[in-house]
């Protein structure tokens, strides 16, 4: 390989010796010096394929490391009178058995509201709740002792509340109920509902979703000097872990260093809920003065942590002869589980996404977060947004069937306008609406109308197998709903040899954040990818970070890293002009070469000269998203800096005798703005689509109806998609649409919006089921659409068939 600076050298990825595989357009852009908009392989790809990318459990253990396990409550509700530790302490290898009384600081790992005990404090709230922390010389010995907790507990059991509907009926909420109301005049919604030519009401039921990150929850706490801890944790939120650990120990933040190089998946499950494990490992390590690792077994992970909130809905919608909605009232009941966790913000996002891509003139949306004796539900990719938006798509489908119209025509009739009909229920004016043009392009790309006719023809000649097709749009708001979270920091070091290290506050969970940030830095400095290295997220490098969540990772950290890199570039340009002549503004950085005043020199050469001239070659960077503001009481403002759009068309076939469903083909068109990395973005889009399809079709959570046991607590009983569940035909394209706002290189966030694309699968199944009934058939299909749910929905049509 050419070791001189040259475009060829730059054509390598983050692994020095692996050339990039690019199409002709990207290859030409790369040769011309571009480093963004390039499908660079993931910065750790060469490590992952070699098994050489360490996760927390892969880091060699320090001498004297102890292992912890959590002992679960055997009941879903009750009073914990006492724990007799003697029998457990007598077991082989057991070093300590710690309970709530042993926590020196706050017994709480609640991220917002302090209602979430680390270890049960006398009240038992769900089956599986940690009641004791067992520390032993080996993981198996700790787990063995934890499994023997039952006879050690003196419990007065109570009857648990296990469903959201039951808690709603009792008025038992974790948070004050919220209502998002927007009317043209007081009473206008009631009038619209009363005066409508058409009105539909109903209920809908939507299941939760286990994150099922392949790498389970893990934390490894190592004592450091002067009452300090270094904690390796698989977490999306190192700063939150730092705060929770400090509170639990009664310490200050500067005593705790939390580090995360990468996660084996997060999906929201490691935003707040890594806290329990970070705190437990830290409490034990601080008390015993030894390193303590807590790695959860998969089943324990299921029974101890929460997941995507299941939702129940009541709705009442009015519409005209074209299917255009004139008013809608909806109540969203989320199962929050036993504690608030992030449920308040999840519900806010659900309320703010019920509109999806549609203008709702008169609207009232009520949110109720039910308290139940189950795991505390939390963030999961989309964070309530998908739960809000799915309802309106069900409503669109029902309106179309009621009127006997094409569901796509009804959707189009309701799309937000560009110059009018463009204000959301939370009073943000949409300034970047492209949904109509995007859907038109997908309709053509997917030959949607032709295939609707083909599906109908198939259904006329087949009685057992039925096909269905649906096309659904996506509009998803980007930014944290809480404005102050929209900030990020970064640190860029240019070493004297010209190599570059970048650190930022975001965490890598597979979404390619480090890759994108490194591309941004390489682009700013005009250097090759191999010259840039990312390091672990570390609370001692960037302080007060936000969670890597709400799809904002690249938007926030990319801008912060660019700020830092541009500061250094400007210093280098000033120096180059002073040393070699010309104007600083005319100095060019590209392909590892700096051009100044008619001469070209290697980037590393200029860096060396600048170092010797005492130019500062490292810088911090900072970014705060402009324009966003939010009134949390009135639920209005501009919570989102911009919107991301998309659409998907899916075609399914169902077996009406078994309820089996198969996705035959999916066509996706998605707006990632001006993509920083098309390959990574397409991976996010397809991955999100398939993951969401799992949520809506096969991933069913079942709790025992009376004792509250989670019965689906492993992949043996909880079915996430496999390769074989993917359609034979999956066509994914990026919609060319540079962000109207000056985001990082005009890109758009891409983590969560694709979760809405898979609504098309559920609605295609609904379409296929409707084909088993007569004209106007409108099946009652719950989600997930398991074979049982499909058969129930077919039966719902049989029951009303004349």
């Amino acid at each position, binding site marked *: 390989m050419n070791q001189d600076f040259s475009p060829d050298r730059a054509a390598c990825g983050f692994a020095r010796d692996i050339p990039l595989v690019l199409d002709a357009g990207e290859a030409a852009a790369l040769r011309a010096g571009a480093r963004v908009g390039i499908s660079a392989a993931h910065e750790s790809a060469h490590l*992952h394929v070699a098994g050489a990318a360490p996760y927390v459990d892969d880091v060699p253990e320090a001498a004297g490391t102890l292992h912890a396990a959590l002992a679960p409550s055997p009941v879903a509700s009750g009073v914990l009178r006492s724990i007799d530790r003697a029998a457990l302490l007598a077991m082989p290898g057991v070093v300590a058995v710690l309970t709530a009384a042993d926590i020196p600081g706050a017994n709480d790992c609640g991220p917002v509201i302090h209602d979430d005990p680390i270890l049960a404090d006398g009240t038992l709230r769900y089956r599986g709740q940690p009641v004791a922390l067992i520390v032993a010389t080996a993981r198996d010995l700790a787990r063995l002792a934890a499994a023997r907790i039952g006879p050690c507990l003196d419990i007065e059991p109570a009857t648990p509340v296990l469903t959201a509907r039951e808690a709603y009926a009792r008025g038992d909420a974790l948070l004050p109920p919220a209502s998002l109301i927007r009317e043209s005049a007081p009473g206008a919604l009631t009038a619209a509902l009363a005066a409508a030519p058409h009105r539909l009401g109903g209920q809908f039921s939507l299941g939760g979703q286990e994150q099922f990150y392949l790498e389970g929850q893990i934390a490894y706490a190592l004592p450091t000097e002067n009452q300090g801890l270094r904690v390796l944790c698989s977490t999306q939120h190192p700063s939150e872990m730092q705060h929770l650990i400090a509170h639990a120990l009664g310490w200050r933040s500067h005593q705790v260093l939390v580090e995360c190089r990468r996660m084996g998946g997060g999906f929201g499950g490691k935003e707040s809920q890594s806290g329990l494990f970070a705190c437990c490992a830290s409490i034990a390590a601080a008390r015993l003065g030894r390193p303590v690792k807590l790695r959860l077994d998969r089943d324990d992970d299921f029974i101890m942590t929460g997941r995507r909130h299941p939702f129940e809905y009541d709705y009442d919608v009015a519409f005209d002869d074209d299917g255009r909605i004139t008013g809608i009232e909806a109540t969203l009941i989320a199962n929050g589980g036993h504690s608030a966790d992030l449920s308040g913000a999840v519900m806010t996002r659900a309320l703010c996404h019920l509109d999806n891509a549609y203008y709702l003139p008169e609207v009232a949306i009520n949110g109720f977060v039910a308290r139940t004796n189950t795991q505390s539900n939390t963030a999961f990719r989309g964070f309530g947004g998908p739960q809000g938006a799915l309802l309106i798509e069900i409503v669109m489908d029902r309106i179309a069937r009621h009127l006997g119209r094409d569901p796509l025509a009804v959707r189009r009739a309701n799309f937000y306008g560009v110059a009018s009909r463009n204000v959301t229920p939370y009073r943000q004016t949409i300034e970047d609406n492209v949904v109509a043009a995007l859907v038109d392009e997908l309709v053509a790309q997917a030959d949607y109308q032709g295939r609707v006719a083909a599906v109908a023809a198939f259904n006329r000649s087949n009685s057992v197998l039925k096909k269905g097709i649906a096309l659904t749009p996506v509009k998803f708001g980007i930014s944290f709903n809480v404005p102050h979270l929209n900030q990020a920091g970064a640190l860029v070091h240019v070493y004297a040899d010209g190599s570059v290290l970048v650190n930022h506050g975001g965490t890598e969970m*597979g979404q390619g954040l480090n890759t994108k940030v490194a591309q941004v830095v390489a682009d700013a400095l005009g250097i090759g990818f191999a010259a840039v290295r990312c390091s672990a997220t570390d609370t001692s490098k960037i302080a007060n970070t936000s969670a890597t969540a709400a799809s904002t990772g690249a938007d926030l950290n990319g801008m912060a890293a660019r700020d830092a890199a541009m500061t250094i570039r400007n210093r280098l340009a000033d120096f180059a002009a002073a040393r070699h002549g010309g104007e600083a503004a005319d100095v060019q950085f590209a392909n590892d070469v700096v051009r100044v005043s008619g001469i070209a020199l290697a980037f590393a050469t200029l860096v060396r000269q600048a170092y010797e001239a005492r130019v500062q070659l490292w810088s911090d960077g900072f970014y705060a998203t402009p324009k966003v503001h939010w009134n949390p009481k009135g639920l209005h403002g501009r919570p989102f800096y911009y919107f991301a759009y998309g659409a998907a068309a899916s075609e399914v076939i169902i077996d009406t005798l078994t309820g089996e469903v198969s996705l035959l083909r999916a066509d996706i068109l998605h707006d990632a703005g001006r993509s920083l990395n098309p390959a990574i973005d397409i991976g996010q889009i397809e991955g999100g689509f398939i993951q969401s399809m799992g949520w809506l079709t096969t991933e069913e959570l079942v709790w025992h109806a009376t004792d509250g046991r989670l019965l689906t607590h492993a992949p043996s009983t909880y079915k996430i998609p496999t390769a074989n569940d993917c359609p034979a035909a999956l066509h994914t394209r990026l919609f060319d649409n540079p962000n109207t706002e000056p985001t990082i290189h005009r890109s758009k966030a891409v983590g969560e919006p694709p979760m809405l694309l898979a609504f098309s699968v559920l609605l295609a199944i609904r379409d296929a089921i409707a084909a088993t009934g007569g004209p106007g058939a409108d099946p009652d299909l719950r989600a997930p659409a398991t074979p049982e749910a499909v058969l129930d929905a077919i039966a719902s049509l049989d029951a009303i068939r004349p």
Partner: protein
Amino acid sequence: MSGIETMGSEATGPRMRVTLTVNGADHDIQLDPRTTLLDALREHLGLTGTKVGCNHGTCGACTVHIDGRRQLSCLMLAAAAAGSAITTIEGLAGADGAPHPMQAAFVAHDALQCGYCTPGQIMSAVACVAEGHAGSDDEIREYMSGNLCRCAAYPNIVAAVREVAGSTMAEAA
């Protein structure tokens, strides 16, 4: 069985001596006879490329090769692997360090996101091709369905396996 010697009981339970042949090298280790091959690789030999996913044989993250055949290492006792040739992700590259074609294909096709399932996917994929079960995309999807990828990088995983299998079958759209 060759390579096994049972030891007397110790404070932590019975121990046995086992010789495991991993990636061409013999390793003499003492372990609890109940130790899985997965734990032996990770905790006794420091070969952490093989990942812990579900610990009961339903996710595929711990896939290794035993005498060339794919095996879930969480479902096999280490003792049962004595005398066999064990290959892990760390042993897949060529003697010169060049990546195995399947490893290169996974990089080229972006067949990973978080990377945690990747070693198991690659071990399974190499075996899938060797078994002759990579003749079409449908067949690849079926024979790779024991390896879960929660990021759902499946379309790219299938593309990587297809490339290595040399299959030129284009699936009808």
